[in-house]
């Protein structure tokens, strides 16, 4: 009597073991997916960082004199660009493109995630808060200009791989600065999520931003 009972139990035990294993595997896969994007995000212009790169803290100030630090990224997506107000070609071209992209996103669905555009000066000796205020507002009154002491700026640029080198001296005392032309996308968790290399075209950047922000949860 005992033997048939044992025999009938055996397949059941095996089934339970298999079931537990399947559940464990499924949970493992599910948690694994939670940590990284479910599938690669398809983009046309952006290079997506996987995993995203969390930023270390830094202390700068915006053009209204308010602190601008790692905490300033919280809860919104940030298009981040580095330049200087004496920059004739690349900076106005990029800020105009960002203004267009911003407008296009505003005109799309109202449930677009909150965004900000931040222009960080790499020329603090000439770019005061007052000059940055006039400069960024020209492209969009909501854009933020950010500056600070050079070492503080470099706390941010170094970790983001942004280069800036004072170059050619102009006749009359002016100078130009070689600098990264990329626009960076920082997520609401203050982690670098994507890099848009120049040239910056509205259509592809809008599309990529929506794809990247949609994949974030």
């Amino acid at each position, binding site marked *: 009597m005992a033997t048939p009972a044992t025999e009938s139990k055996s397949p059941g035990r095996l089934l339970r073991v298999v079931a537990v294993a399947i559940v464990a595997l499924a949970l493992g896969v599910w948690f694994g997916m939670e940590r990284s994007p479910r599938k690669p995000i398809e983009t046309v212009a952006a290079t997506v960082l996987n995993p995203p790169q969390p930023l270390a803290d830094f202390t700068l100030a915006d053009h209204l004199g308010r602190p601008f630090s790692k905490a300033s990224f919280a809860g919104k997506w940030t298009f981040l660009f580095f330049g200087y*107000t004496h920059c004739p070609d690349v900076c106005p071209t990029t800020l105009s493109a960002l203004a267009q992209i911003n407008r296009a996103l505003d005109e799309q669905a109202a449930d677009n995630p909150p965004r900000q555009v931040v222009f960080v000066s790499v020329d603090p000796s000439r770019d005061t808060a007052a000059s940055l205020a006039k400069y960024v*507002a020209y492209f969009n009154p909501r854009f933020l200009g950010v500056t600070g002491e050079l070492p503080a700026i470099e706390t941010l640029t170094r970790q983001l791989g942004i280069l800036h080198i004072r*170059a050619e001296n*102009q006749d*009359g005392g002016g100078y130009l600065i*070689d600098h990264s*032309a990329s626009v960076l996308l920082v997520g609401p968790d203050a982690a670098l999520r994507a890099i848009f290399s*120049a040239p910056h075209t509205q259509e592809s950047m809008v599309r990529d931003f929506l794809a990247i922000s949609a994949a974030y949860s």
Partner: protein
Amino acid sequence: MNRHALIPPGVLLAMHWAFAGTGPVSVSQAWVRAGPPSISVYAGYLMLNNRSNQTQTIVAVSSPRFAKVEIHRTQIENGIARMVKQSELVLAPNGILKLEPGGLHLMLIDPNGVLELNERIPVQLEFANGASMNSELTVRAAPPDT
């Protein structure tokens, strides 16, 4: 002695091509990106069309609205934008050369007074052969439609 006195006035006139299109080079899509009134440096863009069978070389550009005009090229290498001053613009025979955002451009330095939107900025292009031509760049917020 004024060496210009040796050149008959008719010849001088002929050497100064009007922008109406009598010379070998024509200019189109010429504009300056408008900017905040506080800035001292602007970029000018234009398309140069060499309608002649000879190479045409622009060696200098000037404007009465700016203290100085330089020719530059933005080069982006490994993500770094670098401005490289150019000594001349070489227009191939029957060729087109575009000065456009992110590439070749005129660097317009120290305006005398604020640039107004839609203002026409006179510029003079000087050629290696001694000829010159006048043109205009329109102050615009965005590139002209092509």
